[in-house]
């Protein structure tokens, strides 16, 4: 038996903050798939096929930080450490970070019944996001 769809079109649902974050979560997920694919293609174009294992290529593709290719057999990591790839790494990192911190807040909200607790959940997680984002960007740009 086919279940009847119970979804409403956006025109009937309206654009609330919840709807926006629902769309944001999906948009950032699609963005991350794009970044990963771009990282894999970039690594292969820069000569990874003879000098990196599959695991090492994936590690680079997840965040294209030059530190992620430091211990591979690549003879020269200079192309991997260009400003372009650091920008790509920063984009992936901030996209993943914002997607992730929203996900953590949503999961923890399910276990926090009081408004006060949910507010603190937001404050603490947002504060943690800014600290980790600053540390992550420092690592990417100084590696």
């Amino acid at each position, binding site marked *: 038996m086919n279940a009847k769809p119970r979804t409403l079109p956006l025109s009937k649902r309206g654009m609330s903050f919840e709807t926006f974050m629902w769309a944001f979560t*999906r948009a950032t997920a699609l963005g991350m798939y794009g970044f990963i694919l771009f990282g894999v293609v970039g690594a292969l174009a820069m000569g990874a096929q003879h000098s990196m294992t599959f695991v090492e290529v994936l590690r680079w593709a997840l965040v294209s930080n030059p530190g992620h290719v430091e211990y591979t057999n690549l003879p020269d990591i200079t192309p991997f450490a260009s400003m372009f790839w650091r920008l790509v790494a920063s984009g992936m990192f901030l996209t993943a970070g914002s997607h992730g911190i929203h996900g953590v807040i949503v999961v923890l909200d399910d276990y926090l019944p009081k408004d006060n607790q949910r507010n603190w959940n937001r404050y603490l997680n947002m504060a943690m996001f800014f600290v980790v984002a600053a540390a992550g960007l420092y690592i990417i740009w100084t590696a």
Partner: protein
Amino acid sequence: MGLKRDVSLSTALRYKGQGPFLTFILHRIGGLGMAIFITVHILATFVEKQGWAIGDFINDIYMSPPFQIFILFCVLFHAINGLRITILDLFPTRLIQYHRQAIAIEWVIFIILFSFAAVSAVTTAIGRL
């Protein structure tokens, strides 16, 4: 007084939750696993750059095959399940009715990719010895 609807994980999986509930729980476990891993990995790398040995120690744990296999599970399951959710959400009227079939396809893709990735992680670790 509202109904008490809290049930244990095993009860939820045996009752109506089954496949969709399992993917829901594994998606959350995978997401939280990655969030904790990435946060600690970034902070460990940051303190390692400041010359603190604790950062090096934590990142060495992350390089171990058991941990890599765990994080590969989190990443691959969360990514493949997330892609299924996104595709179904983009075309709800056409696709939501096939969500159980979509979950079956998801598991086939996940098992193939995860097996390949786990074997690669182990052979890479053996190659480093």
